[in-house]
């Protein structure tokens, strides 16, 4: 599926800072990644690790002030999204980049019917008439599996269940056939059976429509089920990046390993306690000069205090193409990794 030749999205050196009264918060620190055509990139990390902020920075969805993008390039095809005007960016949002948010209960406007909300981007970006947009909205609702689509156009969000609302959100995000779909924890607010339905739907749509997807989650189980490649984020940085199989088979960063250990096992003897990662992700008040994970890391040593590890490839492939990790200890053997 991945096509090495032309990444649809190429992000380099992205830095996002929040300016608050208490000083600056460095939420995204020198993040670089790319997204191949048709690829599904999983982004994992705890709350506060900078996943959502990174993705919202890409298309200018962060309120500014306080957010400020300090550096970087975000190439969507031939266009640098950080250089174009606000108007040009609006023409990208919703048309070439679709966004799905975490909470479907609040992400739809309660006072407009769903037909109107789906038709809005169609009319704006595709120049459709009311009738054309309504027709397309029905197609989209059918595509995301809402029964009786034509009848439900006039319904308001509160008349839909949570799972159905998330389907409506997906329909809105897909309305203009985007190249990239960014899904920001789209299943977190849903119960498990609905979550499974939504995952199935996205898998199916991906094959049908062939778009690239960035899937933000803190659920590694979801990543294992759908992703091609995974990026692990911590402290606003990418700490490990690998094809999904490599990451699960050979986790390199202590944070990744700790995350994997937190997944409770369904087989074998019952563990006495659920595994946790002690402590909390740091609040970055300055650009990192030391490893962000050192305070919670069992392997930290002198160098971690003074030298922020850079991402380096561990499988001989160019950085970002294969398996890379930002840890002074890496590479470690697979046996040590699971120890």
């Amino acid at each position: 599926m991945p096509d090495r030749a032309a990444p649809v999205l190429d992000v380099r050196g992205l830095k996002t800072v929040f300016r608050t009264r208490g000083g600056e918060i460095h939420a995204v620190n020198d993040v670089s990644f790319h997204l191949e055509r048709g690829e599904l990139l999983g982004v994992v990390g705890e709350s506060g690790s900078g996943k959502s902020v990174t993705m919202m920075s890409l298309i200018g969805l962060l309120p500014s002030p306080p957010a400020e993008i300090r550096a970087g390039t975000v190439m969507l095809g031939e266009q640098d999204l950080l250089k174009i005007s606000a108007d040009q960016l609006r023409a990208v949002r919703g048309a070439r980049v679709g966004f799905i948010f975490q909470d479907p209960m609040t992400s739809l406007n309660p006072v407009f019917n769903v037909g109107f909300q789906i038709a809005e981007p169609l009319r704006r970006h595709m120049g459709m008439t009311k009738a054309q947009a309504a027709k397309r909205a029905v197609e989209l609702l059918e595509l995301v599996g809402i029964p009786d689509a034509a009848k439900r156009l006039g319904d308001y969000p509160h008349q839909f269940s949570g799972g159905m609302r998330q389907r409506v959100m997906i329909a809105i995000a897909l309305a203009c056939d985007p190249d990239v779909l960014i899904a920001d924890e789209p299943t977190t607010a849903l119960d498990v059976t609905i979550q499974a339905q939504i995952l199935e739907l996205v898998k199916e749509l991906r094959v049908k429509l062939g778009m690239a997807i960035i899937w933000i989650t803190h659920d590694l189980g979801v990543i294992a089920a759908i992703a091609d490649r995974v990026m692990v984020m911590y402290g606003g940085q990418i700490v490990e990046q690998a094809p999904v199989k490599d990451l699960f088979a050979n986790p390199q960063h202590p944070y990744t390993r700790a995350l994997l250990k937190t997944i409770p096992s369904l087989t074998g003897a019952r563990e006495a306690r659920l595994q946790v990662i002690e402590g909390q992700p740091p609040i970055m008040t300055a650009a990192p000069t030391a490893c962000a994970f050192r305070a919670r890391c069992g392997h930290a040593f002198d160098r971690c205090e003074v030298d922020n590890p850079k991402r380096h490839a561990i499988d001989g492939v160019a950085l970002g193409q294969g398996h890379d990790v930002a840890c002074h200890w890496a590479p470690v053997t697979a046996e040590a990794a699971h120890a």
Partner: protein
Amino acid sequence: MLTFTLRRLLLAIPTLFVISLVIFLLVDLAPGSPMSEIPLTVPPEVRKKMIEALGADQPVMVRYVLWLRQFFWVEPATLFDGWFGTNLAGGEQRILSWQSRAPVFTIIGQRIPQTLTVIGTAYLVGVLIALPIGIYSAYRQYSLFDQLGTLFAMIGFSVPTFFSGTLIIIIFAVTLGWFPTKYDTNLAVTDWPSFLQQLRQMAMPVMTLGLANAAVISRYMRSSMLDNMTMDYVRTARAKGMSERVVVLKHVLRNSMIPVVTVIALGIPSIFGGAIITENLFGVNGIGAALIGAIHASDLPMVQTLAFIFAVLIVTFNLIADVLYGLLDPRIRYD
């Protein structure tokens, strides 16, 4: 919605009956006599006759029931007769003012146009100023505009109209000489120059009250906009690539208007109540002035009738506000 409205209308009947009784009894408790403005040279037996002639010597319950009949049957019938030339009222006694001996509704009919033109315009102007200020203040929170808007609202809130009105008279009438100090109730608008004159004499009371009204409503608008500005659906609208104009003036505003419309609707009865201080200050001979005059003269029928009319308006506009709420917010269904 229709069932809800009908149910509320039916419920309003007992409510208003209770209110009318309470008003009647409370007003009756007030000290004073309808003869207090009659010269002392009039001998007591003549005074007694006058009180009997007014029906003021009757027990309070008798007067109450009589008033009910007059208010709900004689007055509407008289109005109907006036329109269609019928004779439903059959010459029955209307509610008479003890002070002027004229029917209370005739006096109200004379006063209400002044009140509605001046106070109504002030309310409208206040709303029209307040909404844009509230919207823009919220959109640019803590900007210079917002700070000035807050200052404006604080002034409107805290400075009483007798002070701001006097200040406005000093500035615009005395110093600048743009507007007349007194409102001429007898001015009839017949042509362009008289219309301009009417506008000029309305300007100052409208400014005074408009400021006070705008202050309250702009605060409501601002806080309601702020509440909605951070909602997830706003981010969704931005993610869809909608322009700021559409995001703010369609998505956010439509949600923010729900509580504000209610506040505006609930404020309308106060227009009919008149603004007693402002009317007095500028010499607008409206309902507020009539009420004050009636209270001074212990003109019980006038006070009772006016108070009851305000009660009816408040109940009505409460209902209207509830219905509007349901129309604006699809999540609210009363049935």
